[in-house]
């Protein structure tokens, strides 16, 4: 995101404008962080899916389940429960992240309207 001035126009910038620009910058940063977090959450969910599928296929009674740095020998049922729980937590988290992302996108659209309205060509709020 740039705020490049146009060629030599005398543009007045009030404190409120500056705050809007700052807020836009902050939202933009948070948006990028969110997109990364959402990507990771989606991958984690996929891994859980794969893991439960593998579990169904396996016929071993004891599964090596990673806790911390070690692989503990855990009965298959307990592993299934654990994976279910972890999946729920991740899904809820993913929902929250997506909600936050939508909220940020709409706030940014609002700010774009306001800032472009005042500064027109003097400001560039697009992703470079």
């Amino acid at each position, binding site marked *: 995101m740039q705020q490049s001035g146009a060629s030599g126009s005398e543009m007045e910038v009030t404190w409120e404008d500056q705050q809007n620009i*700052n807020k836009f910058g902050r939202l933009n940063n948070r948006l990028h962080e969110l997109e990364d977090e959402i990507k990771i959450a989606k991958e984690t969910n996929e891994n859980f899916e794969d893991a439960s599928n593998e579990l169904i296929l396996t016929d071993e009674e004891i599964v090596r389940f990673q806790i911390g740095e070690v*692989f*503990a020998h855990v009965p298959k049922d307990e592993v299934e429960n654990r994976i279910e729980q972890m999946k729920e937590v991740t899904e809820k988290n993913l929902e929250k992240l997506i909600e936050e992302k939508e909220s940020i996108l709409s706030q940014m659209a609002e700010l774009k309207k306001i800032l472009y309205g005042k500064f027109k060509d003097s400001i560039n709020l697009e992703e470079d």
Partner: protein
Amino acid sequence: METSASTSASVTERRGIPAAAFVEDVQIYLSQTGLDVNSALAFLQERLQQYRVVEMKLLAQQRDLQAKIPDIEKCLDVVATLQAKKGTGEALIADFEISEGIYSRARIEDTDSVCLWLGANVMLEYSREEATALLQKNLENAKASLEVLVADLQFLRDQVTITQVTIARVYNWDVHQRRLQQAVATASES
């Protein structure tokens, strides 16, 4: 997500980071500081550089903390698992890595104490409850530090934005001035 409207016109600095002064009017700013346009631009550019340096440092700290937090959570997980096994009287069998790609099997008997690695080649034995309490406290401290760090970064980025806008405005004002002078010069010639 924080939505505070910052009244940072009154904040002069935050944890060693100087706030960027907001410029109401470029002309007044230049006469107040007594700088000509190029010196003002140089000063602002240097400020920007300093902000970038601090930003790098904070980002590195943030990465460290973000790595530390899952570590602590994993430890809490292990202690909780031991806690759960306590009731059953069974031993916990676990495979652990002794070297890259080489694992060994361990039989962990029911025990009331765990050892925690405190760093600096120090490891202490704690009861399970004490260990959980200590790990919990470390986790909370790490999360609190991370929050403060994130707020610092936001403040810093705001100052960077303010400085960038000020640079653009001073530059534009200068170009505008030159245009005016050009116009006056050509008008008096004709």
